[in-house]
């Protein structure tokens, strides 16, 4: 099944970023509530202590 493309929206007061399916049905209520599109956040790799010790 083809994956529905997504976009990132930021809340009106800027304290939350949400990944949303890019369909009018999903986007409309959020956009009406003042959420607006932002670039995709940079992906961060989680580094655990164990991984770091093993040099991963």
């Amino acid at each position, binding site marked *: 099944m083809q994956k529905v*493309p*997504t976009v990132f929206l930021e809340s009106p007061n800027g304290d939350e970023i949400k990944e949303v399916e*890019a369909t*009018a049905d999903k*986007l*409309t209520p959020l956009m*009406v509530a003042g959420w607006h*599109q932002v670039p995709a956040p940079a992906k961060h790799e989680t580094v655990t202590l164990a991984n770091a010790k093993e040099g991963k």
Partner: protein
Amino acid sequence: MANINELMDGWSYGKQTAIGTANSTAIWRHTNLNTKPWAKVPVNEDDRAEIGKGHEFPTQLFKSHYNMPTYEISKYASSEFLAWVMAFSLGNVTVVGSTAPYTYTIVPALGATNPTGIELPYFSFIQQIRPGGSAVLDEMLVGCAIKGWKLSIKNSPGRSSAMCSCECVTTGQYTSPSGVTLPAVATPHEFNAGMISALTINGINYLSGGSAKQFVSLDASWENNFRPGFFPGSGNQDGYQIQGRFEWGDRAFAVQFVVRVQSGSMEYTNLINQTTGTATITFTRDSSNAFTMTIQKMGFNVAELSNTDGIATLQVTGVQLYDSTNGLVTMSITTPQPGVCQ
């Protein structure tokens, strides 16, 4: 001397970063059914009202302001032009797609949450006749905004069955020569009424079932009712004051449509019963070019019996209600054009 056919219009599909900062990179060139150039109107004033001169006649001229008229861009409806018009006139835009086609979802911005308050995105407009060393006209108007638009659909053949025009305003700031080399004329992916793939208004499907042959025409319009943008510090051009902002006033969204009357027509019933529902109008040209206008909650204000080319018709005036969840209207446009209002 030059024929008006030599006039070339281009404007930025990308937004300006600020009202006074031109966008001279994300520019396209389009044809325009409006055959006039955008006039610049500097206004002078005089001292006729001032006493102390010994007479009532004016003796001096003073530079006042640029009184820029509105300018119409009138085109056959296309995925590219509709994306541009809706994005710049409504303001809240989301785009998805890393390669063509791109899908834009657009709703009217609200002042409380819009990053630019009650101002919409601005674009730059270029008009040229024989640009170069001996140009007849070569200027870039900076700080343009869409005041309103009209979308009309009607029973007729060809491109004129789906038209879109918009009224633009500008501050008075300009650069001449523009410094822009316009690209070749774009080839927009145009729609016509035969490409309508959904047309349901307030529960009445005008494409299939009992009401399939009722539809005659539809006119939708948007008006931003901008307030004048002169204020202390708004700026000047050639010594004339220019506008430094276009803030929307009471915005208006109007929809009227005409349908043939038949036995059991639902329009009058919906009006009397104050029935409300969504209205969805979709054009689908192909998988890369589509336009959907979804009016979230529409009722009927007036349904008036009339005569259209000898056929008994109802002229219906809609009232578009604001839904607390989905707002007023959502435009969804799929187009090969990237970067619209970005």
